[in-house]
């Protein structure tokens, strides 16, 4: 069930995108999220589409895998499309059937907004698919470093993030294990009336909470025992290195932005 989910998952591979500096990837994603709102007609959306698929190609993530993993999200995209199509009442009337009226602007908006949504999901998944969680946190920590001046606890934030990211797979395994143990004791998680299924969550959640608290305590003790004392004076084992490819990637995004500004209507 959870095996197919790919959001937040890293796929190891050798590719240009994998080798990029996490900082440049984070900056690019951040800018991309802003830039995508520049698109407002066919050409600009086509441009963004080409860019997105170019990046996907460079990452060497198998497309079939991406499709299987994003299928649940595609339903959300479809839902936004339908919402726009049925509820926007602008432009000329295209089609009428009883109380249902579909307008030209609705179709246009629907397609554009769901496209935007779709590309955003693709690009952000690409970030997590090609960057290990630890790289992302390292990148974020360095990027946010200036905020230390205003006493923002950057290191603590990054630590919290890496700990929670680190324990997602552990928690998933644990969930799977306890779920199986309870299924073996006759719990039905995936069939039966809704009320029963909600009740079935209790034998899963309580053991999960218990073990999570236990694990958190053990982790705290282990860190204490090894003399952890926050970010002060801490050096890094993995050093980030900004390479030519990173600069080039930023340049490509800049060119995309300029083209978008020129082509938008």
């Amino acid at each position, binding site marked *: 069930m959870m*095996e*197919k989910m790919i959001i937040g998952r890293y*796929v190891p591979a050798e590719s240009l995108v994998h080798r990029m500096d996490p900082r440049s990837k984070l900056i690019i994603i951040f800018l991309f999220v802003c830039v995508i709102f520049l698109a407002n007609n066919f050409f600009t959306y086509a441009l963004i589409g080409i860019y997105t698929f170019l990046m996907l190609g460079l990452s060497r993530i*198998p497309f*079939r*895998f991406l499709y*299987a*993993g994003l299928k649940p999200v595609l339903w959300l995209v479809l839902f936004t499309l339908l919402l726009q199509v049925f509820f926007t009442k602008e432009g000329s009337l295209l089609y009428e059937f009883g109380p249902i009226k579909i307008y030209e602007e609705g179709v246009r908006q629907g397609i554009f907004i769901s496209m935007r949504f779709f590309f955003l999901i693709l690009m952000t998944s690409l970030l997590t698919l090609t960057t290990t969680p630890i790289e992302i946190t390292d990148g974020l920590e360095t990027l946010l470093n200036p905020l230390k001046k205003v006493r923002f606890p950057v290191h603590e934030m990054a630590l919290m993030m890496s700990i929670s990211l680190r324990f997602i797979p552990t928690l998933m395994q*644990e969930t799977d*294990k*306890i779920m*199986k*143990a*309870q*299924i*073996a*004791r*006759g*719990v*039905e998680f995936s069939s039966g009336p809704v009320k029963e299924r909600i009740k079935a969550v*209790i*034998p899963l959640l*309580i*053991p999960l909470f*218990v*073990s999570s608290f236990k694990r958190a305590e053990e982790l705290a003790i282990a860190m204490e025992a090894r003399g952890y004392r926050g970010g002060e004076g801490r050096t890094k084992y993995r050093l980030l290195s900004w390479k030519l490819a990173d600069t080039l990637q930023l340049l490509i995004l800049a060119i995309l932005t300029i083209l978008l500004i020129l082509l938008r209507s």
Partner: protein
Amino acid sequence: MDISLQSIEYRYQANTPFERLAIKDVSIEIPTGTYMALIGHTGSGKSTVLQHLNALLLPTEGTVVIGDHKVKAKQKNKNLRQIRQKVGIVFQFPEHQLFEETVEKDIIFGPMNFGVSEADAKERARLALQQVGLSKEILEKSPFDLSGGQMRRVAIAGVLAMEPDCLVLDEPTAGLDPRGRKEIMDMFYSLHKERNLSTILVTHSMEDAAKYADQIVIMQQGHVVKQGTPIEIFSSVSELVEMGLDVPEVVRFQRSIEEKLGVKLGATYLSIEELSSAVTELLRGAPV
């Protein structure tokens, strides 16, 4: 209840870049009343095989027959619940599955899920608690107030109270002290004999395998590499050592006696008593 695995294969996360072949072409027969030990290294596929015995995993290839039920690869399989009622699994560290407010409620949880009435389930809880060697007083306690060993026993009682025809044990004594280990293993064995259960034990302890099992299956890298009675298995020490597996202490001792004295005892002995009487016999008969 007979169980039979017919050339089953299982792939984790099929059709993704994470696809991993866990077991391949595994065939095992477990007739009613068999005590079978499943041995192998971590990652050899033992746990995967074990989960097929309860239809927790469905094979990606092959057929699993559990009593009257057939579970086939690539088919909609129904009535998995009935299988789960008949096959009880004690997972590794079963105390992690406890969740109820009281020990009693936790033990009757399984039976009641399978439609046993509350009164009957409570009766079973009392019996199961006795079997695992705990007193009735703790029935009203919270399972989270118990010691680790007691929690383990309560969790095991929760599986026993389902009164399964087949018990599947995944290293049930991992992390227990030697005395608790022996008590629990002996308890499973007497239950196995009393109720004519089929028992499948996954273990790293060659001692336990030699002592309790009628049949031993050795797995390596997702395959069954050797299968036979304990005596057959432990007769070829060098083969086991080659696989990186341990040999029971008694067998090791027998081999070193044979080497020292330059003799060959007729058979492989798995208990200290048998070996000592064989050695005595040998010494008596031997010209001094």
